[in-house]
């Protein structure tokens, strides 16, 4: 527990405390009066209200749409399943500007649905909610599906043999077993949508603001640090309340389960009901996730002289001839992959150790630590970015100009995923297995390696995939600290989008398509590694 604690103290708590203190302490005196001023401002209350209800609505909608998907991905075998699982994670890495505009092309004014049925969703709350489903579908499919695939279906069958109906067998056996993973997924979707930034800005227009948007405006645009500090505290309080609620509801339900190899639980669907479910889920995925992505790919190929690779070629040639603005696409891909890989290692080490510590120990202190690990998801990137800047600026920790800052900031967002994905699985491991091993003389480390690790191997892969995808797509903090000569793909895309012109726009689309491919490819590779290794266990 020492490593994750130290990591969070240095790279999260300290910088955030520094920037908040900077806002609330003027000339050596605390200005707590500011807190009540900002909190009682009706504008703040409006923002808080909108932030809460859109997050609740988005979470509910995402669960409703994605839970059937989690089931299908966990229990059914169908061709292209691995690829599709990688594809649904792609929205995660796309810059919101790009994904948002693809989404608008589909749902907005003059979009596909508008032309077909006159359905327009731009600037309505529906656009925000659906975009949140688009972005967070993978969270549910991967976290819940990850555990679901490892539940032994024979337990449910046993209940049915004993006379339970299909529904009640599911309700009594599977649902309680899944509940912690569902709660974990719901929590993450909630935190993501609660702190939603780009989606709100693009699809909601300037009329809607979340706390995150407000914090960004106060910090980066207005430099009103006192107000930003208070809003950050308000966001902390709200997130802490949600985390407490989560801890309270989940704690009592987690139980030891029989976990099995996911390869053995999936089978081809049988019967019309199962086929209908499979096709239904595939249709939702096609409409909601694949089509917007396809729109992007189409735009990247739709050049001035018809379809072709003009924009891709332009990426190469402008990198050769241009100045500091241009960067060879392969170079940006390399930067992105390298940063994301380092960030994934950080996240896995820190998150893995934290999850192990959390399963082993109980008590109030540990629970508080659990919540602490989730806080980065509830903190705005600009707060962390500015915090890094003013806190990590003196030796021995003068990291302001160092490339390590990028993966460190990215890992901060990756750790909660690692913890949340691994924890339900780790807690589900039957404790008697561990005890038996200990009785037979195994050291705790050996118990962990021989008992826990084989069972959580899949969770590790899922967690790594998440951490990797999050790091690949991270923009908010990266743009503050990435060096311009080493931009990541999202940063390079943002640069292209910042200029007028057909070619630069096309190049942005081409780079986005490359980002999609890199993401899907990496996730497929990660899964492949896992399947190869699972033979050992």
């Amino acid at each position, binding site marked *: 527990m020492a490593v994750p604690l130290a990591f969070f103290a240095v790279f999260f708590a300290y910088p955030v405390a520094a920037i908040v203190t900077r806002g609330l302490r003027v000339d050596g005196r605390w200005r707590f009066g500011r807190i009540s001023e900002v909190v009682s401002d009706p504008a703040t209350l409006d923002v808080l209200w909108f932030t809460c209800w859109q997050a609740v609505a988005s979470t509910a909608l995402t669960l409703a749409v994605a839970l059937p998907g989690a089931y299908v991905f966990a229990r059914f075998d169908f061709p292209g399943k691995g690829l599709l699982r990688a594809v649904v994670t792609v929205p995660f890495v796309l810059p919101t500007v790009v994904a948002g505009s693809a989404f608008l092309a589909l749902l907005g004014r003059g979009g596909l649905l508008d032309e077909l049925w006159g359905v327009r969703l731009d600037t309505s709350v529906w656009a925000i909610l659906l975009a949140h489903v688009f972005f967070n579908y993978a969270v549910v499919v991967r976290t819940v599906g990850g555990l679901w695939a490892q539940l032994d279906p024979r337990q449910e069958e046993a209940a049915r043999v004993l006379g339970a109906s299909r529904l009640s067998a599911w309700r009594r056996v599977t649902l309680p077993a899944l509940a912690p993973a569902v709660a974990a997924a719901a929590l993450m979707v909630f935190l993501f949508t609660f702190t939603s930034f780009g989606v709100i800005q*693009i699809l909601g227009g300037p009329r809607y603001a979340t706390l995150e948007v407000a914090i960004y405006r106060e910090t980066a645009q207005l430099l009103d640090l006192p107000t930003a500090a208070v809003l950050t505290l308000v966001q902390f309080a709200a997130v802490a309340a949600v985390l407490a609620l989560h801890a309270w509801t989940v704690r009592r339900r987690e139980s030891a389960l029989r976990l099995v190899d996911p390869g053995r639980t999936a089978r081809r669907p049988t019967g019309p009901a199962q086929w209908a479910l499979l096709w239904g889920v595939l249709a939702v995925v096609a409409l909601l996730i694949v089509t917007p992505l396809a729109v992007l790919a189409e735009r990247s190929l739709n050049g001035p002289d018809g379809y072709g690779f003009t924009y891709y070629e332009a990426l190469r040639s402008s990198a050769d001839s241009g100045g500091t603005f241009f960067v060879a696409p392969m170079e940006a891909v390399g930067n992105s992959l390298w940063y994301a890989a380092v960030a994934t290692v950080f996240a896995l080490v820190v998150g893995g150790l934290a999850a192990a510590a959390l399963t082993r120990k109980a008590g109030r202190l540990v629970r508080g630590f659990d919540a602490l690990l989730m806080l980065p998801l509830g903190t705005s990137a600009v707060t962390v970015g500015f915090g890094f800047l003013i806190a990590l600026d003196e030796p021995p920790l003068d990291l302001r100009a160092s490339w390590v800052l990028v993966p460190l900031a990215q890992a901060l967002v990756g750790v909660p995923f690692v913890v949340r994905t691994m924890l339900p699985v780790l807690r589900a491991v039957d404790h008697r297995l561990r005890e038996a091993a200990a009785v037979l003389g195994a050291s705790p480390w050996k118990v962990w390696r021989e008992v826990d690790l084989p069972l959580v191997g899949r969770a590790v892969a899922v967690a790594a995939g998440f951490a990797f995808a999050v790091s690949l797509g991270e923009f908010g903090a990266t*743009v503050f600290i990435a*060096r311009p000569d080493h931009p990541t793909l999202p940063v390079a895309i943002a640069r292209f989008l910042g200029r007028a012109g*057909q070619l630069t726009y096309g190049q942005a689309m081409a780079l986005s398509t490359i980002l999609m491919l890199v993401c899907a490819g990496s996730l497929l590779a990660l899964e492949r590694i896992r399947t190869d290794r699972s033979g050992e266990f």
Partner: protein
Amino acid sequence: MNSQLRRAISAALLGSLALSALAGCGEDTKSGSDSKTVTLVTHDSFAASKAVLKEFTKETGYKVRVQAGGDAGAAVNQAILSKGHPQGDVFFGVDNTLLSRALDNDLFAPYTAKGLDKVPAALRLDRAEHRVTPVDFGDICVNYDRKYFADKKLTPPRTLDDLTRPAYKNLLVTENAATSSPGLGFLLATAAKYGDDGWKGYWKKLRTNGVEVVDGWEQAYYDRFSGSAGGGKGDRPLVVSYASSPPAEVADAKSKPAKAPTGVATGTCFRQVEFAGLLNGAGNTKGGKALLDFLLSKRFQEDVPLNMYVNPAREDAELPELFTRYGVRIADSATLAPQKIAKNRESWVKTWSSLVL
């Protein structure tokens, strides 16, 4: 007993220590510890030809290291937060809308760059003390879609007043003044033209005339505007953008058209001037001064237009053909004193939000 666990932890710790050490190595190339490098702190749209930067190294022996952070506003705020202990030696990218904030925070040390006499007085906003050096300027203007107006046989608008006429109802899209710099620029253009109180009445009219507000330039230009060759799917033929957007539209076209597909409403412009300055507390003051001289040198100034799509500050810097052929020289852009902007900015944006959003 659990020595293996302990070993794993110490390995992880060692790993992170090694990484910090690696990071430390990287820092040696930073300002201060190495007088051969000069660090330019800027926003993420800074761009220059590699060849030009190399030339600087050849002439002076200094290597330029670029440190970018966020958009222009965020970059300035970052610099203010780390003042006295700056991230580099020279800051580039503070514009006239943020200049007072930077100067009031004592961000810059005075230095008169070589070649300043070639910069028109109108751009030299810190004439008394020379804490900042003007490097480039650009105009935020309403752009129009030529094809739309030709098809409708409608004259494109030219002035701010035109935009409130019924003929142009529901045609304009602009950006949120609170979050976007062209959005703010357009608000300031109206404040400069109609005065402290008059601009509110103007925006009420604009609102009645169906102005649409989106959050950022990318959405306005690519998603809502009908004239951009890249996006071009929108249905609004008028957009708040830059005077240099038309040249940018044709910059990469293989066969150059006679006219850019978009035009500029010349009476709607607000002038944005970008400055550079020597940061207080810089590690490499000498190198910083050399870099400031270089930013004003003809060589760099003539490199500016095609890299950042703004105009060079020097009068004698030659513009590329792309700009002379497809760009527009705006003679009477609106301006406001930086102090006035600093004083009113927040309250204006608040009032604007309540009026328009």
